[in-house]
């Protein structure tokens, strides 16, 4: 299976381990990723707060670049939920409005680019759960994560507003994948609740409430698994502040999905760059060490 790859800005900076583990996991699954040449920022959540046209033109630039890649016909794989939504939105809107596509192309012309509308943007979780599938992951598991309890956290923008691959309110697409690793599922209802997104930067007191509720519900799990760099950093970086507010003490391990799957498939914590995560507890690593003796 071959995909074009749009990492997005976070995956070059604070979420480097998401980029590295996604590439390592996909390679181990036999999938091939080709990075879109010359990609630029999708606008994140910032463009929408500034300009409607920019919100569409910034992602469209990348879709136009993707259309120029050969061979054609490959889906665009995106690990970041915010990038995914921004790119997907342009596909959905230009499909129903040719006027809008013309407006976007008028802007792109200054870059010598044209967007024809022939791309298909896919979230990493969509590709892992539907193209690759839990059975294919299970076949490659060499180190079952027995005794490790995992809470799947989906966040918002890979699920909503476009319900493409999962139930947008009660998502379950990660459950078969977690089962494939041999880990136990932490049952909870917080998987699709908002982490506050950029509130943590502009309105921290509001962001801390949302993150606090998620971390509180995760108590009893050994790790929370995410599929978005924004969700990840919100859940992992402010745990001390949350503890002061909610009284829920102790660190919760927060991993990216390809890190969890990769561990069970025998990739090392070093290769998956667990050292770059902000919250991985000694308790979690100890439980992971115990899986070696069990296997």
């Amino acid at each position, binding site marked *: 299976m071959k995909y074009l790859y749009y990492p997005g*800005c*976070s995956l*070059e*900076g*604070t979420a*480097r381990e998401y980029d590295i583990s996604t590439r390592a996991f996909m390679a181990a699954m036999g999938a091939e990723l080709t990075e879109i040449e*010359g*990609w*630029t*920022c999708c*606008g*994140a*959540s*910032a*463009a*929408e*707060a*500034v*300009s*409607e*046209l*920019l*919100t569409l*033109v*910034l992602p469209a*630039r990348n879709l136009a670049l993707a259309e120029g890649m050969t061979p054609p016909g490959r889906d665009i794989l995106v690990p970041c939920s915010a990038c995914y939504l921004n790119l997907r939105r342009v596909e959905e809107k230009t499909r129903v409005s040719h006027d809008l596509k013309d*407006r976007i192309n*008028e*802007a*792109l012309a*200054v*870059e010598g680019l044209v967007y024809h509308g022939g791309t298909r943007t896919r979230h990493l979780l969509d590709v892992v759960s539907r193209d690759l599938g839990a059975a294919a992951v299970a076949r490659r598991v060499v180190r079952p994560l027995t005794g490790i309890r995992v809470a799947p956290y989906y966040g*918002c*923008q890979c699920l*909503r*507003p476009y*319900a493409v691959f999962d139930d*947008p*309110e009660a998502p379950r697409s990660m459950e078969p994948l977690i089962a494939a690793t041999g880990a136990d599922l932490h049952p909870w209802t917080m998987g699709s*609740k*908002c982490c*506050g*997104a950029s*509130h943590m*930067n*502009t*309105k*921290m*007191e*509001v962001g801390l*409430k*949302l993150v606090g509720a998620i971390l509180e519900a995760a108590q009893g799990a050994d790790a929370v698994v995410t599929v978005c760099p924004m969700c990840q*950093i919100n859940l992992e*970086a*402010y745990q*001390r*502040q949350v503890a002061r507010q909610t009284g829920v003490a102790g660190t919760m391990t927060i991993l990216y999905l390809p890190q969890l799957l990769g561990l069970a498939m025998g990739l090392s914590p070093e290769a998956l760059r667990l*050292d*770059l995560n*902000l919250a991985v507890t000694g308790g979690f690593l100890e439980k992971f060490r115990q899986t070696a003796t069990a296997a």
Partner: protein
Amino acid sequence: MALAEDTAIDLTAMPEEASALADIRAMVQPCIQCGTCTGSCPNEFAMDLTPRHMWRLVLLGRTEDVLASRTFSLCSACYMCTLRCPRGLPLTEAIGRLKQLAARRHLSHLRSGDLFYRNFIASVRRHGRVREMEFMGLYFAQMMNPWLPLRYADMGMRLMRRGKVTLQLPSRGGGGLNRLFEKVAEMENRS
């Protein structure tokens, strides 16, 4: 009623704002005031107007009351209201339009979000990709609150220990996007 009259005066003074407002109002025109948006919003607890109330004020043309509130700036774009709205209205998108309207006015009570997003976008314009540390640094400097960076000091230290923030990325995206930004601005001023 006095508020509605004030709004009317504002609108004739700023025709481009009037057309943006007419667009937003058209987006939520079929609202039946059921309150599903309010019940679905994770940030409602921190808002001064509930989302349902805010949409009512939008429909009544009480723009100044809407822009004076914090409500739309507290939307974290989770799309739960959009998903559940029984009328199928693009509520999150309409809130985006309100944010754009407010950004053009540089409202003081929304300063933190305004500066954050403007510095973010300026970084994209300069480099093509976001340099997280550059724009956070400019944001802190412009907020002129010496205590603000301290709230992020713990995270900053941990990011630094992992070599995540000293890293200044080369702009492999082919440099800045100045021409594209200028073109978008020209098109938006035209319409």
